[in-house]
């Protein structure tokens, strides 16, 4: 994995770290892939009959399934192991970044000072929304906001390397599968778009923002996020890769950009980390920011469409109670996002809610797309 083309901002792994991470990734795969059949077996032979006995009916919701699955010893140890895996993995990737942090900060400063075409604008006064700061999302101590030193890039670097290793190279050498999926989806579904300005909401380390620069030559690409350490890293990473991009610290709910100033507005796995209210507000902001004829596209976890049985939804919902993802289950299974998009001003006939395939891969993402009327 280390042998893929690495950019200069990406933290390097020692040989011990490579071994440690390889084990922890395989551990996760054993839990979520190899043992999933056994988990389902426990449901079918133990939990489901127990539910029928107790309630005289079949489970209808993930909450129904939870009533009997959470009592199953196999589920309990499976779930506990998943949590242990998450904490060990995060801690180990964090160690890897922390030991290289002074050097990474120096590189950031250097790249920022010599920035060729991109920009970085931070707003220390920005109010960080509760939904992203009340708990450490997906169990990363310090979350997206930890600052260990001045000009810190720690959170951004950990996010990049953490997801890079986890993808085992399947997300491409630049760890940008979501951005590539968005580009592919737009090119296929909106082939006539000739965008001048593109905005990525909740861009974090910018991995998935940069593919839009290459896909639409001549377009100006902007990325916003509420996390300063992620944005510093994103800026340095883009400069190191020699890809022009403009990053600024803003909330996707209310940006400082003018009405109708973008042809494309995208987001990647942003929604599930926000709140029911924020999703509505962000969709309204997208409508305001788009030019007539412009397109918004939001990608998120596919299980919103693929987990359809109460059992699958229960398993998919693990992260809500075990991985500090407070909005996860509600986003996946409870909110009517089409309705929120309509309320934001998009027309029913323009809305697409579907699965978008990762180009060249087996994976896919949930996608919500819409054109703003009036072109």
């Amino acid at each position: 994995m280390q042998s893929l083309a690495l950019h200069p901002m990406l933290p390097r792994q020692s040989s011990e770290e490579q071994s440690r991470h390889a084990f922890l990734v395989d551990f996760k795969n054993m839990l979520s892939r190899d043992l999933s059949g056994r988990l389902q077996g426990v449901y079918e032979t133990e939990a489901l009959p127990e539910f029928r006995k107790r309630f005289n009916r079949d489970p209808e919701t993930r909450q129904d399934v939870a009533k009997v699955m959470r009592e199953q010893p196999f589920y309990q140890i499976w779930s506990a192991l998943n949590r242990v895996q998450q904490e060990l993995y995060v801690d180990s990737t964090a160690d890897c970044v922390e030991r290289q942090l002074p050097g990474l900060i120096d590189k950031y400063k250097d790249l920022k000072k010599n920035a060729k075409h991109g920009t970085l604008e931070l707003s220390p006064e920005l109010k960080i929304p509760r939904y992203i700061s009340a708990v450490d999302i997906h169990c990363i101590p310090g979350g997206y906001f930890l600052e260990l030193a001045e000009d810190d890039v720690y959170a951004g670097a950990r996010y990049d390397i953490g997801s890079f290793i986890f993808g085992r190279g399947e997300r491409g050498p630049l760890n940008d599968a979501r951005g590539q999926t968005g580009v592919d989806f737009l090119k296929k579904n909106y082939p006539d778009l000739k965008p001048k300005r593109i905005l990525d909401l909740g861009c974090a380390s910018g991995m998935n923002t940069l593919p839009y620069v290459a896909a639409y030559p001549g377009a100006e690409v902007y990325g916003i996020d509420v996390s300063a350490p992620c944005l510093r890293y994103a800026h340095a990473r883009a400069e190191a890769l020699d890809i022009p991009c403009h990053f600024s610290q803003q909330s996707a709910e209310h940006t400082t950009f003018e009405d109708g100033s973008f042809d494309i507005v995208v987001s990647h796995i942003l929604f599930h980390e926000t709140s029911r209210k924020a999703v509505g507000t962000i969709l309204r902001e997208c409508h305001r920011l788009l030019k007539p004829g412009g397109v918004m596209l939001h990608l998120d976890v596919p299980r919103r469409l693929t987990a359809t049985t109460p059992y699958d939804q229960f398993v998919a919902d693990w992260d809500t109670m075990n991985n500090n993802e407070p909005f996860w289950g509600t986003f996946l299974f409870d909110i009517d996002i089409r309705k929120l998009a309509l309320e934001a001003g998009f027309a029913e006939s323009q809305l697409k809610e579907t699965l978008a395939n990762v180009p060249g891969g087996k994976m896919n993402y949930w996608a919500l797309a819409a054109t703003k009327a009036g072109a």
Partner: protein
Amino acid sequence: MNAVPPKKRAQSRPRIPKGYRPNNLGDPHVERVLSITMAVATEVSVLHDKIDTMARLSESQSKFSIADIEAYEPTAEVKAEREKWRKDYLQRLLRIMWEDIPDAPEARGTSYSGVVREVSGE
């Protein structure tokens, strides 16, 4: 002792996430012990790779240094072998997850105390 000015020196990071700590196993001590166990298991895997590196280096040279161990780049073949080892190792480590193990001592199957009585009788 430390030449780095205090403001620039990186503080150490928090290591426990803020938020909800689930108690899947009903006893926080058991969860802690599980975490310790899996941390040890992880390090065993790390050691396995390191020993494997040393064994392979020793095949091609009689003396090698710590730097040689760190610089060693496993070939695709070696990587595949190590991956296979990890899979088998995880299988052994999590054996308990693959077997049907009754939770109550006498659940599912013959009554053990019955067998004890049976073999103890005249």
